[in-house]
């Protein structure tokens, strides 16, 4: 009987293709809205989250605004490193200069730091080496270039052993980092050069450490608390004298925002699916009236209430599910297109969202099909037979 009902529903749907398609359109658009919006948010969230992780998810940074007469020297960082919840500590002074090589020049951010910075930031070398303790101690004019900096100034990446001038000083290039094709690098778009803290601080005329990068040992929140206590003790309990940023709390906040966003967009999409459902109900009601005679004939030759009910319910369900299927196909195409355009982010349809769409569409087909189907099933055979439409 179910197979027969499906066959009948299929015949009814295909007998008026345009109308069936227009009825489905509400569901198609609803499903596209649901799947595309949720997938876009998920894709973007995934991309941003992985960027944050790449940036040093487990990193805590401290910026000192006012040293209260007890500035932090490079040696003092050992005190922070000695805290239980701290793994490594590195200064990260920065200053902008024009860097030159031959006829090419570029404004670069010169970061003054120590070897520990490499691990804290999770950097990757392509050529040469990173800064060494000896470089810091001797205040050597050596530099590690980001891939894009090397490319901009030299037109190539393997430039270890060459030299360049930064702010009028000559530096020996000892290393080049891996190319960073992440979204953040693209967004920030700057050229970075890493040099010994001792060199950078002299050039920036800022002998003290004003910015510190800390990698945690264990829980990041713990690290944040301990570093914060340390800074408070040092800076006369003035909370405004420094600013501490916990990268993992940024990504937590980020995921809360995107979670809310996908819920909101999903909600909007659900409303459009609901509107699609009302469209189905509307057309089904018209269809039931138009087919009153058919219902009468079927009842006269022996169709019971249940059979008629089943026939119309399956028809509504089928319209809804076909709309859902088409919507999924279109969504897939749209996501493929967006991914092709966005390049760096790939948006894919998760199984979860597909299941959600199919579940929602079925529920809508059933709920909005119920009333018309019931109306059809309850028609009196004599009245229905007499109906001339």
């Amino acid at each position, binding site marked *: 009987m179910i197979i027969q009902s499906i066959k009948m529903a299929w015949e009814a749907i295909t007998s008026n293709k345009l109308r069936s398609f227009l009825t489905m359109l509400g569901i198609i658009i609803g499903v596209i809205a649901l799947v595309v919006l949720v997938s876009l948010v998920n894709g973007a969230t995934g991309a941003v989250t992985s960027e944050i992780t790449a940036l040093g998810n487990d990193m805590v940074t401290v910026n000192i605004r006012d040293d209260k007469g007890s500035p932090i020297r490079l040696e003092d960082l050992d005190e922070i490193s000695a805290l239980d919840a701290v793994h490594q500590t590195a200064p990260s002074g920065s200053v902008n200069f024009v860097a030159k090589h031959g006829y090419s020049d570029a404004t670069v951010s010169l970061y003054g730091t120590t070897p520990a910075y490499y691990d804290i930031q999770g950097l990757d070398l392509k050529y040469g080496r990173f800064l060494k303790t000896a470089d810091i101690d001797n205040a050597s004019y050596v530099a590690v270039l980001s891939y894009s900096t090397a490319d901009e100034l030299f037109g190539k990446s393997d430039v270890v052993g060459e030299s360049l001038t930064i702010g009028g000083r000559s530096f020996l290039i000892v290393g080049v980092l891996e190319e960073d094709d992440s979204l953040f690098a693209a967004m920030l778009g700057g050229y970075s050069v890493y040099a010994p803290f001792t060199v950078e601080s002299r050039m920036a005329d800022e002998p003290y450490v004003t910015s510190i990068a800390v990698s945690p040992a264990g829980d990041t929140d713990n690290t944040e608390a301990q570093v914060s206590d340390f800074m408070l003790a040092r800076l006369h309990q003035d909370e405004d004298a420094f600013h501490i940023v916990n990268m993992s709390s940024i990504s937590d906040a980020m995921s809360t925002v995107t979670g809310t966003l996908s819920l909101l967009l999903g909600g909007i999409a659900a409303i459009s699916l609901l509107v699609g459902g009302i469209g189905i109900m509307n057309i089904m009601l018209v269809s039931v009236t138009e087919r009153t005679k058919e219902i009468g004939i079927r009842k006269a030759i022996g169709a019971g209430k249940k*059979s008629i009910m089943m026939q119309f319910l399956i028809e509504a369900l089928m319209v809804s599910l076909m709309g859902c299927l088409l919507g999924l196909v279109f969504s897939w195409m749209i996501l493929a297109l967006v991914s092709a355009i966005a390049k760096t982010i790939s948006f894919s349809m998760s199984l979860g969202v597909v299941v959600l769409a199919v579940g929602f569409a079925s529920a809508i087909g059933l709920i909005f099909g119920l009333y018309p189907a019931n109306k059809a099933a309850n028609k009196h*055979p004599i009245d229905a037979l007499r109906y001339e439409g």
Partner: protein
Amino acid sequence: MTAGKPIITMTDVTKVYTVGGEEVRALDGASLVIREGEFVSILGPSGSGKSTLMNIIGCLDVADSGEYILDGQSIEQYSEEELARIRNKKIGFVFQNFNLLSRMSALSNVELPLIYQRVHLGERRERAARALERVGLKDRSNHKPTELSGGQQQRVAIARALATDPAILLADEPTGNLDSKTGEDILALFRELHDAGDTIVLITHNEEIARQAQRRIHIMDGRVSEVES
């Protein structure tokens, strides 16, 4: 022809419609017996209660009072679902305006009552094809009703009525929408089916057509009486 067992036994059946506070006695104490293998015509002028009688015989409606026994089964205040099942098994309707489903082929139309009997595909096809063969439309199985003449459509409707081997064939003005020549062909088909043993009830307002039957029952203002031939 020997008188078979009674298929229809109606005793004192009444059906009253109330329209605007006024009672219309569409059937007023109607009693009749129709036996297996009979070909009976029910004759009466417009408004005499013919369709009302057919609806009750055909279990599309139930009487307000009186007793109706169909094929040994007393039809009382059954639920719609049960009445549908009885119609499906025991009644074969033939309507004035054919009442075929225009979207479906002749064969599918004939199959329809068998679908509701949950007969499986193979047997269903076979029985539907046999019914179409009986009405001489074997070669039109795949035609849609719109591709058939009026007479052919009525034959398909008769085949649909025959497909389930019903206890009676119930025809309400089956020739009303046909020209006289085609109408005669259909009546000839009914006689043929009667000769083959089917029980037929033919409802008409036309004396001429009624005369084709073996037995005539007259209905007037909801009251039934036998006409001696």
